């Protein structure tokens, strides 16, 4: 495995599969109840600070509908208590927990574990 190589494909990572915790930024750098985009080895990840629920989520930044690098700029919220993000382009909504498309047949999102330690936000990757 070559650490310097760029990652190309999004693939959901479960907590157990994490080999690398990537340190993104300090909590204060994130907007409240909103998202920001981080780059890890060429891969764009949307990280959401759901401060209202005291929860953090990470998904791919690419909206599968029109292949746009945009989801970090989407509005987050809930649908019957399921946390979600809506793409700014055409309002396709995805579950932040499972990545599932909530209102149509678009592909689901890849999701990544997030942890917060000593004021810093980390996203988990396999490699």
């Amino acid at each position, binding site marked *: 495995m070559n650490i310097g190589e760029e990652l190309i494909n999004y693939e959901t990572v479960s907590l157990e599969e994490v080999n690398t915790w990537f340190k*993104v*930024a300090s909590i204060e*750098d*994130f*907007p*409240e*109840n*909103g*998202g*920001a*985009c*981080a*780059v890890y080895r060429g891969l*764009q990840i949307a*990280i959401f600070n*759901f401060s*209202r*629920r005291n929860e953090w989520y990470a998904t791919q930044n690419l909206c599968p509908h*029109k*292949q*746009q*690098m*945009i989801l970090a*700029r*989407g*509005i*987050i*919220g*809930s*649908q*019957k*208590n399921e*946390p*979600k993000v*809506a793409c*700014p*382009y055409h*309002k396709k*909504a995805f579950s932040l927990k499972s990545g599932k498309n909530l209102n149509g047949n678009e592909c689901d999102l890849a999701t990544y574990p997030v942890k917060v330690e000593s004021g810093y936000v980390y996203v988990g990757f396999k490699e």
Partner: protein
Amino acid sequence: MKKVVVVGNGMVGYKFCEKLRSKASSDKIELVVFGEEPIPAYDRVHLSEYFSERSSEKLSMAPKNWYMENDVTLHTGELVTSIDRENKKVITHHGHEELYDKLVLATGSSALVPPITGVDKAGVFVYRTIEDLDNIISYGKNVKSAAVLGGGLLGLEAGKALMDMGLETHIIEFAPRLMPRQLDDHGSATLRQTLESLGLQIHLNKNTKEIRGNGKLERLAFNDGGNLEVDMLVISCGIVPRDEMATTCGLNTGPRGGVIVDNQLLTNDPDIYAIGEVALYNNMIYGLVAPGYDMADVVVNQLADGGKKEFKGCDMSTKLKLIGVDVGSFGDALGETPEAKTIVFEDEQQGIYKRINLSADGKRLLGGILVGDASQYNMLWQIMDNELALPPAPEELILGSRGDAGSDALGPLPDSAQVCSCENITKGDIVNAIKEGNLENVGQVKSCTKAGTGCGACSPMVADILNDTLKSMGKVVRKVLCEHFDYTRQELYDLIKIKNIKSYEDLLNTYGSGDGCEICKPAVASLMASIWNDLVTKQDTIQDTNDRYLANIQKGGSYSVVPRVPGGEITPDKLIVLGEVAKKYNLYSKITGGQRIDLFGAALEDLPKIWEELIDAGFESGHAYGKALRTVKSCVGSTWCRFGLHDSVSFAVEVENRYRGLRAPHKLKGAVSGCRRECAEAQSKDFGIIATELGWNLYVCGNGGANPQHAQLLAGDIDSETCIKYLDRFLIYYIRTAEPLNRTATWLNKMEGGLNHLKSVIIDDTLGICDELENDMQYMVDTYKCEWKEVVNDPKLRSKFSHFINSETGDPTQKFEEIRGQKIPAAW
């Protein structure tokens, strides 16, 4: 299996196929249709829309593949020339022969062309088919003036179309009044006054003797010795049933045309029916679409179900919008019933005339006329048709009673009452469909029952019935925002204002539930901006992306930048700055529809730098990204234009600067024209101001977009100060009461009482809120700040404009291509 052949593919012919196929599939009845026109049936009732849309598809009753999908064999462009009754077959002009078991004649009618000398000259047209319209449009391009022969329904429609083509337009009517079958002298006079104020020239009592000119039409000569110089003539003075083929094969026809039918629509041949405008029933040709549909229904009932439905004649009531003027005529409109008593209301100032005719004992409504305001048409028609008891003071029916008297009057409506006359749908049909199908909105009701899909006149009543039925089922019909707020937008407006709530989180904690969503967050953001005028980027994550980054997101994730150019007036120096900025940041440049310049393809992180330069040069945010005031477009006005009455540019600049930054339920556009030539297209805007000799005419609630709608006159000949005052009131009233993302036109369409209600609130202050509305607007004007200036001067706000949280670089995936020397985003 039976084989049915239909001759004629017009509205009624099509409707027959639709109704037949809903009852009998192709394994029961084979269906073959001949239409002489090259395209399948289209909506002739809305023919004048072809002038603006230029699309026969929009008028189409059903696309070609509908016929295929429903196993209907359609031969277009093929004229049936004779019927061989003995061998039961029809023969077309191609020599094609088709056998039938049952034959349905739906050949319709052609335009009546009176035998006037010179009627064959170039420049003389009839108004009947899309082909006629194409000819009129192409001839009209090279002429200045036109006349319509015939001041009936269709003639006036044609007149409007000619006026829209920019021609000086005359209407010539033989009778002493317009729409002689539907209106009396007073109604005609009221209509005439309004139409003339819109620019139509109307000549009554004119008998056209000769059409003169050298090869082409140059002037019309009348019997009274008068002349009218005109370049073009459109004939619309009646219809002639297309019965020629019926006559030659020996079917009985009337002395003035039309195939004679009995109450089962059968001709004297038991295998041949006639329906629509070719059928002569009880000595009458029904020149409206609703009776034609009824006839189709009766024949389908016999052929598909073996039923015995009868055609019983049909009401010739009609309601329409003629050139923006409501006209309704129903029942015994002219009061010809012996001893009928008449009640009349007339308002010359507003161009309103209403008349109802009562039975001799005063207990029943016989019919009536409505000009200028037909909002009571449905109610009156129902009272007449169902013979409902009249209120003790029947004059209240037309005196514009307040409140929701309209729906009260519909309360006792029996289930058998016909609501949609085009599709023959009763109130009971609609109520049952709502209950059985669990329908919850008008769209569902329309697609399920077909009610309101014809002329659409009954749509408001369908909505009323839906609301009443839902209420009776105990369903709440409040239009709440979303699952997180059990309040309407208007209720939230009041809560935010009265409880002095300044943040979304506070509102959600106090009055909402859950965590919000992409519907309520921007809606509340808009409300707070409309009420408090705080900087929107302070609560950036509840904004849609455009408001969050104060720019318009485009394909590929880049943004576009539109500085304000009030009234579309810009100095050369400022133009140069725009050019320099566009060059420096490599931005695609395009002039917008609102007289501004849009710079596309800016990276998120470049936005503050771009704006810093623009602000240094004196530009401000144009709010192109917001549901907010966009532009106030202007024509050049009296400073330069030889036709201009007032300085439209200065007024547009003043108005745009007054309302800049104003956030609303949807975007707002305005325009100011310096004369009634209307170069600024003010009547297509949310508010449009047009100079008159005496001041300004203020129009409101127009829009372009998917469903274009002309703005309507709110107040005429007012001075600048009054105009601003009315605008202040109008805009705040809209902001307060509209549903989310409803533009002013939709808002007005849904408003109970419509324009009259709006006028009473804005001009007569019937709600007593005008001071409040003006104060609210003054607050917005006083607290205006340029959002981009705030951001540019605040390092913390500036730092939000970056693509990555952990890198300074922009989005490396953004890709651009080139077109005509500028960049565009790679296609998605």
